[in-house]
């Protein structure tokens, strides 16, 4: 193992043979940050950003947010009523007065309080709404016409959704945008393909493959070292973009309340998970690592099979395009199983955890993302085995043989 780790260090160094890769990574990071700032800098003025309004909303949220006591709720509803009356009457000043109004305008403040009250009501009524759903599920379970599979789903739903409660109002809405953000995933995949192909073709490109083929550790152990190196590269890249995205969203959208349960986010109100948001961030990161490692492993296998860098890159990108097509269009029950093997699914895991999304596997409801994670893990293992098997073949990279050099 020590020898493999030593070899891995040298395999990682092969990434730096082409300085252009490092330049591309730096450029992609910058491009990603610019993209986030461009679309999510809602508190800045200019362009389509209603910065003044959003800043005022934030100020009001800070004043009225936190634990939702009876007293606070009543105050918020009262402010909403006043706001609705003002808006309906039309009897308000159009003059900009920042000393009197949070956003400087009477109508603007009215809108802020209406939105605030609606959000507070959603949180306060959450428990009651789900209690009704749970009761309906329990009633449905008593019916004879329902089949076993749907009985089990309803039973699970009853267990998951009972006793849920939301008690605090925070500025955590922006974290949903973070979970839905896909642009950095595309950049990451491009960099993964380029870097992985580089690791597996650097020897042949540098004309140094003969040293590996005539050395005791040049086949199996070197292949294992390359896999470790490409995995470390994947982990580093995933972490880099994840941290950039998270920090950017946290700062730009002034996110707080990560200790609140995931179902406190409006788009996740029926998620089967009961963990706090910060734990879900970690889980999301782990899903991303799984998806990206699968892409790395498959790219490695493609490269070992095709041997040349250009063909390998083209084939890997073609496969990536196919994954996107499957993810976008294979949505019906009959075609959905294809996406069980699609690494893009765990990479975009939050989408599949917004509600209780199960598959019928031998009449058992299995959470789709859980089944996908297992299948993607199997694909990764198969790809790794393919790389090891092909790399151990004698002269596997020697298409040129001795003919040209005799």
């Amino acid at each position: 193992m020590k020898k493999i780790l030593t070899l891995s260090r040298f395999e990682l160094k092969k990434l730096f043979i082409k300085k252009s890769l490092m330049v591309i990574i730096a450029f992609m990071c910058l491009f990603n940050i610019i993209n986030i700032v461009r679309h999510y800098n809602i508190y800045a003025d200019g362009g389509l950003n209603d910065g003044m309004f959003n800043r005022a909303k934030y100020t009001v949220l800070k004043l009225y947010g936190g634990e939702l006591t009876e007293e606070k709720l009543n105050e918020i509803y009262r402010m909403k009523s006043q706001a609705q009356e003002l808006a309906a009457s039309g009897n308000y000043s159009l003059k900009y007065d920042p000393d009197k109004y949070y956003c400087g305008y009477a109508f603007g403040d009215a809108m802020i309080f209406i939105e605030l009250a609606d959000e507070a009501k959603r949180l306060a009524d959450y428990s009651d709404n789900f209690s009704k759903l749970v009761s309906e599920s329990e009633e449905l379970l008593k019916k004879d016409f329902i089949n076993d599979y749907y009985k089990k789903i309803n039973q699970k739903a009853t267990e998951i959704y009972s006793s849920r409660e939301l008690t605090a109002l925070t500025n955590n809405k922006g974290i949903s945008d973070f979970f839905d953000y896909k642009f950095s995933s595309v950049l990451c995949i491009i960099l993964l393909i380029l870097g992985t192909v580089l690791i597996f073709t650097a020897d042949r490109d540098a004309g140094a493959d003969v040293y590996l083929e005539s050395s005791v550790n040049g086949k199996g152990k070197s292949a294992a070292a390359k896999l470790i190196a490409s995995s470390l590269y994947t982990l580093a890249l995933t972490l880099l973009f994840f941290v950039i995205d998270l920090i950017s969203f946290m700062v730009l959208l002034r996110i707080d309340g990560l200790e609140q349960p995931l179902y406190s986010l409006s788009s996740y109100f029926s998620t089967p998970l009961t963990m706090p948001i910060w734990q879900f961030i970690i889980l999301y990161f782990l899903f991303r690592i799984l998806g990206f490692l699968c892409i790395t492993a498959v790219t490695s296998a493609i490269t070992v099979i095709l041997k040349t860098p250009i063909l390998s890159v083209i084939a890997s990108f073609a496969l990536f395009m196919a994954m996107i097509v499957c993810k976008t269009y294979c949505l019906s029950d009959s075609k959905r199983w294809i996406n069980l093997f699609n690494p893009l699914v765990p990479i975009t895991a939050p989408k599949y955890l917004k509600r209780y999304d199960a598959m019928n596997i031998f009449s058992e409801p299995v959470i789709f993302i859980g089944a996908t994670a297992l299948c993607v893990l199997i694909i990764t293992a198969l790809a790794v085995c393919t790389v090891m098997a092909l790399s151990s073949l004698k002269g596997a990279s020697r298409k040129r043989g001795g003919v040209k050099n005799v």
Partner: protein
Amino acid sequence: MAQLEINGISKSYGKKTVLDSFSAKMSDGVYGLLGPNGAGKTTLINIIAGILSADCGNISINGVDKAKSGKAYYNSIGFMPQYPKFYPNYTAAEIMEYMAALKGVENKERGNELLNFVNLYDSRDKKVGAFSGGMRQRLAIAAAMSNDPEILILDEPTAGLDPIERIRFRNIISQLGTDRIILIATHIVSDVEYMAERIILLNEGKIIKDMPCDELCKSIEGKVWQYSPQGGDFDLPRYIKKHKVSEISHMLGMRIISDGPPAENAVSVTPKLDDVFLYYLDSMKTDGAEKDVEQ
């Protein structure tokens, strides 16, 4: 003492036979594998180095068949390819460290010792991309020696080197050849003439001759002639076409390979290895040279 035995090694690519039942036995010393381009030298040494597999035949080191020894076979082999290349962003020290890891060498000082041996210690922290051709060749020799192999295989080791580097290289090889088998594949006769004790002549995949250098030269005694043509209208280009001419000198005239005297005043001289190469491996001319007397 190392023993290398090669039995009936053959290799074909489609209909083209590149090696045809090659057999040889070697023990400690320097061996020259001599042949023109396309003779099968690189294919043979790639098979011995474990990079290519033969279609049939076997190789054994110290009596142990390669197929049976598995990965341990590579512990006995050191290989230097033709025009050696390395990763340009690695330093010489890193290359040696990497080679040590590839070959399973535990001794961390071995790399520095070898760099010192090939006079590259002072350049150990320099990136290989900035090395000259001669420095790369010397680094390649050091890399091939990482695991102190019993069998050192060198493919065209002096190709592209200037005379000084070539001499430096020969000296290194001579020092290494005392306690291991060194097999040098080349078509540059002067290299093996100075270094090799035994020469294997290879042509079109077949062994033509396999004997010590001095015996090889003796085998064509009486077939090498020195001839200085007289007369101003001598047609040199036509003469060269008709005869195997190994050397043309303004002072000494021509050195011709022929079974009989090519001309009346031709003088028999002591054969050199260049003459041997031409005699056995130049298939362009026949022995009709003796029929053609001076114009």
